[in-house]
């Protein structure tokens, strides 16, 4: 089985402030996989809204639906903005259906969406809501970000795929470089990964993570995922955030 040389790992961990109130349910979800046809690495993170009673289901459905949409697309379609909007439309329809079925409002499934689709020389990024995505080229010393998190008047305010105007808030970009290292993370660890004073990526943060991937075998690493899980649950992270947190890492640097 080919995985295009990609190695990847991911974990979502519940925030300390939610451990009691939500009976231990983490509202973040993620999905990361190498798809043979089309030959891309696809990674998704979705952060469920605190106010949404079914945010966990919302973020799960969103991740799964995006993965299956990507698997059904052709390589040409994948990097079109229209594909992102079509996918968003399908997510909204699916969540709306789910809400009707359970006698709820679509708002009860509110969640964000971070998507990275990486082919050898093109990578597409889509985003609604907070969290961020970073990537690096082989041999480069610095990491780039896809979209800088925009903080509105309130730090807690964000956009969700369920918003009536979500299409207006969808951020889309493609980069024509070889993104050999990609990270997606929810807002719980934004402050660790991004330097909000300098307005750039905390290179030191990723330099502490990506080199661990070099020695890994190709494909999904359960071992590294376990270590990410431990890191996200560690005091170092919990001192900075009481929110749920997710980190997805993918690398194809040897």
């Amino acid at each position: 089985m080919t995985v295009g040389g990609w190695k990847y790992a991911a974990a979502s961990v519940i925030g300390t402030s939610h451990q009691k109130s939500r009976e231990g349910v983490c509202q973040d979800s993620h999905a990361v996989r190498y798809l043979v046809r089309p030959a891309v690495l696809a990674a998704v993170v979705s952060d469920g809204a605190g106010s949404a009673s079914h945010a966990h289901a919302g973020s799960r459905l969103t991740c799964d639906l995006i993965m299956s949409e990507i698997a059904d697309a052709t390589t040409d379609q994948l990097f079109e903005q229209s594909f992102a909007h079509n996918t968003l439309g399908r997510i909204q329809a699916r969540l709306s259906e789910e809400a009707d079925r359970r006698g709820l409002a679509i708002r009860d499934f509110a969640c964000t969406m971070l998507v990275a689709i990486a082919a050898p020389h093109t990578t597409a990024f889509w985003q609604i809501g907070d969290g961020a995505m970073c990537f690096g080229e082989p041999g480069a010393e610095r990491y780039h970000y896809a979209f800088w998190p925009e903080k509105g008047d309130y730090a807690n305010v964000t956009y969700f795929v369920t918003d009536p105007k979500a299409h207006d808030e969808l951020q889309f970009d493609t980069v024509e470089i070889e993104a050999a290292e990609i990270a997606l993370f929810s807002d719980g660890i934004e402050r660790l990964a991004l330097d909000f004073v300098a307005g750039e990526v905390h290179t030191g943060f990723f330099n502490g993570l990506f080199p661990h991937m070099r020695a890994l075998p190709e494909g999904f690493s359960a071992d590294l995922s376990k270590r990410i899980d431990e890191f996200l649950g560690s005091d170092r992270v919990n001192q900075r955030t009481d929110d749920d947190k997710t980190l997805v890492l993918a690398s194809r640097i040897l």
Partner: protein
Amino acid sequence: MIAFEPRAGLTLYGADGRSIVLDREIAKGGEGSVWGIADKPDFVAKFYHQGLSPEQARKLGAMCRLKSEHLVKIAAWPVDLVRPTAAGVPQGFLMRRINGYSQAHLLYTPKSRRTHFPEAQLPFLLHTSVNIARAFATVHDAGQVIGDVNHGNLLVSKDAVVALIDCDSFEIIDGALRFPCPVGVPTYTPPELQGKSFSGVQRTQQHDTFGLAVLVFHMLFLGRHPFSGIFRQGQGDKTIEDAIREFRFAYSPNRGATEMDQPSWVPPLSIYPPEIANLFLRAFSAQGASGSRPSSHEWIPALEGLSHNLRRCPANESHFYFQSLASCPWCTAERATGIPMFGFTLTVIGMQGFDIVALWAQIEAVRPDESGKPIYPNDITSQFQPDPRIQETRARRRKKRILSAGSILLAILIVSPGLLPPAISIAVLIGGLVAMTTLWKQGHPGEKFAREHAIALRSYEAAYSRWDSSQPHPEAFVRTMKRLQTHRHELQELPSVRAARMVKLQAELRGKQLQRFLERFKIDKEKIAGIGQGRKNLLQAYGIEDASDVRFDIAIKGFGPALKAALWAWRLSKEQLFVFNSAEGIDPADIRALDLELAQKKAALVHALSSGPAALRQILLPWQVERSRALANLNHWSRAVAQAEVNTKELARW
């Protein structure tokens, strides 16, 4: 002239020729320095960096002559000039040392009050206010004027005693001579002097009483300035100086004239008796400015009167208020701000009357109030009706859509008979298409409602997050509760601790008697099997002199197992002779020491427990306020979301 330079050990001379010796510098400011004096701990000497000008020396000289016992008591009044030689030029002056006082603002601002005057409540503030008025009255009775009234020149002790400092800036009248006060602080300056230069103005006692009224206002109104409020006219707030000049007393009931609103969280003037309210109104009015401002003497009986007419709040023992009021104004202010207004007194309760059960009931009664449930949009959407304006929007849209469909139909109708040339047919069709899309777009539904929906969702999420984070009880509350539980447990355990300690003393008593008994059997004088004089000497060398010293595991070279066993058997044989004398009892001194130790421990525990209810309430207050605000905010946005969803649904209909 060489500038005078004070230094430790320097000898200076007073007016009567007596010498003083500088000890060390106590304080240094922009203007000068203050020095302690050897063997005169109650006085200090003040020097100016610039030296004393002849005018200053004359003013201070006059003040020294005018000094009185009363003035020295309430102010750092100059008492003597000091000179480098007995006949030299004065270089500084002596004044009473004001020690252990704090600046007045540390008392009147609620936050610093709790740190610097932790036990000060309204009676203390009234007492201080009376003392401030008395201090002003003393200066005025002496025919003098303070001039530069401000909170920095007023110090307050832990006993509410006040002292006016920086007296060298006072306006001094010495017979026909007048020594002016050239400085002032604008927020304490009366309207008639606002904006004027202080240098040409004659300061009067009437001017001082404006500053006095401001200071008393600070004391009684949580450190607020009487002229700081919300100006209802024009853009932005008035400066305090402008408000003073324009007689805009923010707390005046005549709001039409002042055009000012007081800050909503500060209690109104009416929480004090009418006599006090009237004094403030007179002091800050235009009439006051024309000479009828209350004198410093007038404040004293009014403030003292209130001191005798206070009630203690049943809900919070740190709150005192005018007894004619229907409810506690401080509870209202605390609910509005989340800030405790007063510290609380640690009451030491007599050991006998102390009732832990009742106190613990009080402690347990302080629970976080978690009444009030959030409303979620799903629960209330059915209660909302769509915005009536949506009917209009939809009607307009229907019209546009019908026109849109009509326009393309019309175009098709025109071209379908095939009578027109192809070019014109195409043009007509294109025209029809353009009309169709334009009209359709014009009929697009209300952007306004979509925007409202987006804002409602966004704000609802923020409100939810705030509500969510207001849920856990404050950590300090949990910690304090745990500590109080430990204290209660320790207190309840005290009798058994005493019993255990007595048992221990008793057991030690047996040991002590046995020790004394065994000490009587000197190895020297005993006959022990197998142990002759030589071995006795050896034991002696190892400090084993009597039966009490013998252990079964002694390690002495030359003492094999058989000898050791013989020695131990000897000791046991003596021990068997011992009879414990229970009648002897424990040394009473030991019991006294134990009881004293336990009494101290108990006092400390009672002390800590007694302050428990108040401490817990103080910790809970800000949490409680935040919780109810977060709840109100969440419910507000829940309703907004419900309304927006109903609107959006209605909007989606044909």
